[in-house]
């Protein structure tokens, strides 16, 4: 065992950190640190800077921009990006659709999409969830009927993050009715400009608009936009689950939040002592969160260092729930540094993000507190993860 980063890994971390600090504009890092939503062009700007250094898609195949870096190095990169308040490369692009096209797409699809996905010249959003297919994703209904050289697409996707900013959407669609609901699902790429596709906004409780509903009414989609084989969509979606786990624990992000809560509590007045950080109660919670973070960092590296398992991998579920819960705990702590000033730190209700910017350097905290509830809901809720751990892993209540 080698329980610490070796010299090469430490040098790599320094190199990454120096690059990020030198090249990502301060205004972008400041906005990320304060958890204010970024304008679209800032996200693109940041991803293009990362991509120019080979930092956007190191986990991809080499011919499409990947690097021959160990998983440990990739995890270090992901952590440094988050920790230094650099916007993550758009996950829908680089961890979801990119690897799917790279693994299952046609040569044409790879040529057409992968460079743009890596460079965020093409912005993809994820069309999996439907009004009646959330945790039970396989019950999805959106249909794509093959008619000659195209599909006729009807149905509705919901909770589609960034659909209003995106150029394309990748969808799980039903291409045939089969005995098992996991069968007959296919993976389709759809240009959001297609007639019959309509994106409508869903306002969320953090005061912003990131979520959308996407309605498809007789949208005609070229058959060449099918990824892989018809009816194999579910397998491709599951393939994703076992893939990029180097950033799944969000450890860099939790660290950034905890560094911030420690800093803010050091400046805030306390109840029992001069500063809030000196308050036994707050300090104990902050410290417990830091202890959990350290464990999570190690869990993250254990997962990274182990070979991916196909199917239910307990480590993935543990990493996802622990990572999400720690982000939530850190958001609780951030909220609790504000005392009565939480009320006027700034909340984007009824005003656009532009006006909301910079009201107060803590203006993003309340939004972040509310929106952090999502970490235990999306991408397989904490209840679903625990069902996996209890059922597939511990085999509770099942015959051996």
């Amino acid at each position: 065992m080698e329980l610490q980063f070796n010299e090469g890994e430490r040098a790599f971390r320094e190199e990454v950190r120096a690059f990020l600090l030198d090249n990502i504009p301060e205004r972008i890092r400041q906005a990320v640190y304060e958890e204010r939503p970024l304008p679209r062009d800032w996200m693109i700007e940041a991803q293009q800077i990362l991509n120019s250094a080979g930092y956007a898609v190191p986990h991809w195949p080499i011919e499409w921009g990947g690097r021959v870096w160990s998983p440990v190095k990739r995890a270090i990169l992901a952590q440094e990006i988050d920790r230094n308040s650099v916007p993550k490369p758009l996950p829908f692009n680089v961890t979801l659709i990119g690897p799917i096209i790279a693994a299952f797409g046609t040569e044409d699809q790879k040529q057409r999409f992968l460079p743009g996905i890596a460079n965020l010249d093409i912005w993809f959003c994820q069309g999996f969830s439907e009004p009646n297919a959330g945790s039970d994703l396989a019950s999805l209904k959106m249909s794509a009927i093959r008619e000659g050289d195209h599909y006729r697409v009807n149905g509705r996707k919901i909770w589609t993050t960034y659909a209003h900013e995106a150029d394309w959407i990748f969808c799980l669609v039903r291409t045939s009715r089969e005995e098992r609901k996991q069968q007959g699902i296919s993976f389709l790429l759809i240009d959001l400009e297609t007639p019959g596709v309509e994106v409508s906004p869903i306002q969320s409780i953090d005061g912003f608009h990131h979520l959308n509903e996407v309605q498809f009414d007789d949208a005609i989609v070229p058959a060449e936009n099918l990824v892989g084989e018809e009816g194999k969509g579910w397998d491709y979606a599951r393939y994703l689950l076992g893939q990029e786990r180097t950033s799944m624990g969000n450890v860099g992000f939790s660290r950034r939040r905890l560094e911030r809560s420690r800093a803010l509590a050091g400046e805030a007045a306390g109840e029992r002592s001069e500063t809030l950080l000196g308050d036994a109660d707050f300090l104990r919670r902050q410290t417990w969160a830091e202890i959990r973070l350290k464990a999570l960092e190690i869990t993250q590296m254990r997962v990274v260092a182990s070979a991916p398992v196909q199917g239910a991998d307990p480590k993935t579920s543990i990493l996802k729930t622990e990572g999400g819960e720690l982000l939530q705990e850190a958001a609780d702590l951030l909220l609790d540094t504000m005392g009565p000033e939480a009320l006027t730190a700034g909340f984007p209700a009824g005003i656009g993000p532009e006006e909301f910017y910079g009201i107060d350097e803590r203006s993003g905290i309340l939004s972040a507190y509310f929106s952090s509830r999502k970490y235990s809901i999306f991408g397989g809720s904490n209840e679903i993860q625990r069902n996996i751990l209890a059922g597939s892993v511990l085999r509770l209540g099942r015959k051996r």
Partner: protein
Amino acid sequence: MNFDLSEDQVLLAEMVGRMLGDHAANDRRDPGAEWRDCLGQGLIALPFAEDQGGLGGGHEEVMLMMEAIGRNLSQTPYLQSVLLAGRVLALAGRMELGDLLDGAQRHCLCLYEPGQRYRWATPATRAERCAEGWSITGAKVSVPDLDDTCALIVPAATAEGLVLFLLPPGISGVTLDIRPAPDGRTAANVNFASVIVPVDAAIGDPAGNEALLAEALDGAVLASCAESIGAMERLLDLTVEYCNIREQFGAVIGSFQALQHRAADMLIAIERARSITIYAASMMDAPAARRSVAVSAARALVNRSSRFVGQQAIQLHGGIGLASECAAGAYFQRLTVLETLLGDTEHHVAAVERSGGLLAA
């Protein structure tokens, strides 16, 4: 002991519930209209003594009112203008209470200051005597429900001690920075630059003002607990309703034991909050120090329950819980604001700690 409501209390609860419920059912809800209805129904006068023009309602009546406000997510500034500012006017025996009771004027109490958390008793805002009366300079933060039509009550340090100043709306030297609050209401930061007021703008007696404010604040904190309880109960109802209609995996999600147990835990958290709040209500006539500790114990536990209930209500709703169109979010937001409004968990637990705990109480 007897925890039953009297006949009059039942009637009051029904009346308020119906009135605010009607407003809640209105798509174009108007907090101003709710305030006017409260006025019309005598609810603004409810907590004040009869010899001051009030109806002589006690803490129990106020709590029924506040529970209904919480349950219906009413944005009427009752807590601020009746229970805080109005109570200060009443305790100080000021004539201006009449303006509140007849609807001519709404008042707001400016308690907190930048970077000082909940230390309202030692303000950095100062007032000096001058030829015209007093000159006030300083800043207050996070005054809920304040708009430019409101009169202000401003605690300031003076050479004579803590003085409360009553400022009419629009007075020169006062600037309001009104911001949207996370619960759909507004709150303001207020700046005072050499604000000149006449001698009779000073309310109360400097030697007694801290105790006066503490008494008003304790009553308001107790009332805020009732609002949180009303909001939590409704939020749990909404959550249970949703769990019983939402289907996944061919069953209503309310049939999944993990969610059943969570909802049961939410119920336990709410009942805990209700009991400690009843305890605090029973201590309102106790000596000031014991009263304050009881109120702090209540708010601390109500805060803790609110956080659990609010967060878990969103969890049980799944994605839709994050959408503004779903009512759960608005309850979660209001509960979160109530957690910080009149002392957060840290503040109130510290107060109970300082008193030496509750076993002797």
